[in-house]
């Protein structure tokens, strides 16, 4: 009798528990934000979270998503692949059908793989993965998935744009490569070598270094090595504290080189560049630049900074992501992931900083205009400084979306 009672109680409890997320899902659409919120990547993860929360508020203030509220739920993956999957499972168990992540291609690969398998096994409960920053090319090539959409330009696209720019600068003779020792850093160094060899065979690669990810506190030994190599330019895919500390150490040693970076704009980067006092020598490849002369983006940036105490909008791609998500849902008149995915597939839009952009159907890589910008003292009509330094990012070169298109090896299984 007691055991039967217990079974009944359990059944009731389970039924109540199961109905709760479903009931909550009726009025809000949730996006699970899975990124590091503690440890070495926390400073980056926090910024991303604030950005997405702002975008959710912004969406809700502009009519929401198919009449519903958009909500961002944060999950801390501690920059760990195992933990990423634990948190992903937790999000899915909580009834969330849209996942966004960006920091670390290794973790993005884990999510992409998991989502692909999950969707195969659970038809009718599909989950979509919106990748806003993990740029390892493999995610939209050999390992591509129909359920994965990438809004950031992958690292090959960025390197194409960077090397195209380097091609126009004959003063560059000796290049040093320094990158983080994991899939993304390895892909940057390999691609840099390949493209420099093809486009500027006269350039000598005087160093090719990898160092552990987010573990180095003192870069002065590396800087001493760069200096000894006689390099005039450094190419690096470093992000987070790895770029800020690298530039800081080079400032201390008085290293005078041009920096071609992916992420010098991140937290602490501009401060370090200002300290190093190297105006207009640090370049970054970006998909949106605050000071680009495009009024809608400038207004958005202004509102964003006003709300978040001067925080720069580091992720224009996140704006593209959320806008397109909302647009796809509106067009489909549904937040069913399968219908949203079908609308996103091949979608054409105007990018955050203006210009045509599209989500390529073949591999779900977003193609958008890319900008080469450098950090330095601001001129007229350049209202946005970085981190209170008085310096800001200024556009030096623009590459249209069409010119960044690279072939893909993706052969995705499309739902029939």
């Amino acid at each position, binding site marked *: 009798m007691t055991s039967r009672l217990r079974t009944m109680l359990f059944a009731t409890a389970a039924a109540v528990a199961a109905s709760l997320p479903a009931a909550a899902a009726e009025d809000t659409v949730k996006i699970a934000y899975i990124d590091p919120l503690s440890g070495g990547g926390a400073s980056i993860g926090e910024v991303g979270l604030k950005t997405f929360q702002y975008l959710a508020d912004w969406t809700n203030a502009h009519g929401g998503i198919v009449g519903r509220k958009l909500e961002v739920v944060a999950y801390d993956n501690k920059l760990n692949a195992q933990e990423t999957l634990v948190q992903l499972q937790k999000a899915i168990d909580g009834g969330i059908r849209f996942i966004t992540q960006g920091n670390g291609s290794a973790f993005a690969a884990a999510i992409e793989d998991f989502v692909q398998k999950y969707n195969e096994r659970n038809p009718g409960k599909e989950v979509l993965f919106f990748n806003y920053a993990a740029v390892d090319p493999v995610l939209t090539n050999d390992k591509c998935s129909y359920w994965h959409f990438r809004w950031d330009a992958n690292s090959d696209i960025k390197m194409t744009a960077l090397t195209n720019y380097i091609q126009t600068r004959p003063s560059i003779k000796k290049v040093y490569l320094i990158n983080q020792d994991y899939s993304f850093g390895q892909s940057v160094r390999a691609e840099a070598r390949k493209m420099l060899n093809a486009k500027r065979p006269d350039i000598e690669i005087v160093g090719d270094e990898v160092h552990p990810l987010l573990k180095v506190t003192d870069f002065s*030994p590396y800087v*001493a*090595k760069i*200096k*000894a190599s006689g390099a005039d330019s450094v190419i690096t895919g470093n992000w987070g504290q790895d770029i800020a500390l690298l530039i800081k150490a080079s400032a201390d040693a008085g290293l005078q080189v041009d920096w071609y970076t992916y992420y010098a704009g991140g937290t602490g980067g501009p401060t370090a560049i200002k300290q190093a006092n190297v105006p207009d020598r640090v370049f970054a490849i970006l998909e949106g630049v605050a000071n680009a002369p495009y009024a809608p983006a400038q207004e958005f940036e202004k509102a964003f900074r006003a709300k978040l105490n001067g925080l720069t909008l580091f992720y224009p791609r996140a704006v593209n992501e959320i806008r397109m998500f909302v647009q796809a849902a509106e067009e489909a008149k549904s937040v069913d992931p399968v219908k949203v995915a079908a609308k996103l597939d091949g979608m054409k839009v105007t990018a955050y900083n203006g210009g045509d952009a599209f989500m390529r159907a073949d591999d779900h890589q977003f193609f958008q205009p890319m900008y080469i910008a450098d950090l330095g003292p601001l001129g007229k009509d350049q209202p946005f400084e970085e981190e209170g330094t008085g310096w800001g990012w200024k556009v030096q070169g623009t590459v249209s979306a069409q010119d960044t298109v690279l072939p893909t090896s993706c052969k995705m299984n499309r739902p029939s």
Partner: protein
Amino acid sequence: MLELVTISTLNGVLYGMLLFLMASGLTLIFSMMGVLNFAHASFYMLGAFFGFQISQLVGFWPAFVVAPVLVGGIGALVERYGLRHVHRHGPVAELLFTFGLAFVIEEVVQMIWGKGPADYRVPASLDFSAFTVFSTNYPAYKMFELLTAVAIFVVLFAVLTRTRIGLIIQAALTHADMVAMLGHNVPRVFMLVFGVGTALAAIAGVIAGPALVTQSNMAGILGPILFVVVVVGGLGSLAGAFVASLLIGLVQTFAVSVNLSVADVLGGVGVAPPAGGILLDIWNVTVAQIAPIIPYLLLVLILIFRPTGLLGTREQ
């Protein structure tokens, strides 16, 4: 080449001296109380954040003095009202206590200062280059860090070997009961040592904060390497900690600048590279790439071949 060697030596010695500032406190606390203080690096972090906060208010120089005193005070309180009570329940409880404390401190720091890096800058009065070696500037601030560390080493050594309180501490290290019999307040000596040990870590934090990064994960990054220093030097040996700090500072710095790999060594004598797979990966890894794990390799080797450490005398 000579330039690289000179600069690397300077950098290595500097990094080693910073390690020593922290390791000295850790090793003293260990030899006295038998407690491996897992929270030691957290006091280093507290030092950096206190230094940052105080220098925002009243400038760097007052912070340089006040922050270590405050942190040392907190350390003494932790010993008096925390460790001393836990002590009764044996060394495992003490270990767990300091382990938990490290997490508490990290959380508190995150709550107050957030997870991002604090904008802790080198003071303007030291923001110039002290001298130029070949063509590399050597910042005055780094020179200041180095001199501070050396000065503290000298003072610490003098206090421990030349003063009365130093004698009592040394005696209490090995014969605590006897010292107590002679009428000295041994618990108070413990509190003092713990306070001074944490204050030393805080000094390291105050001066390293602007040069490295002041962030809530800084304790986690430096913590493990500290244990390597005290184990390699010999648990409880101050001179050992000194030697090990310099050794590890130099090894880490120089390893980064060595591009040698198995391929260069074996390939040079005519051995063919492996066909592929994981062996090929190992074949091509350079010393520079594995630089960060070399200290841990050293730790393992020391524990196997000389468990007492380089200069340790303690029976295992």
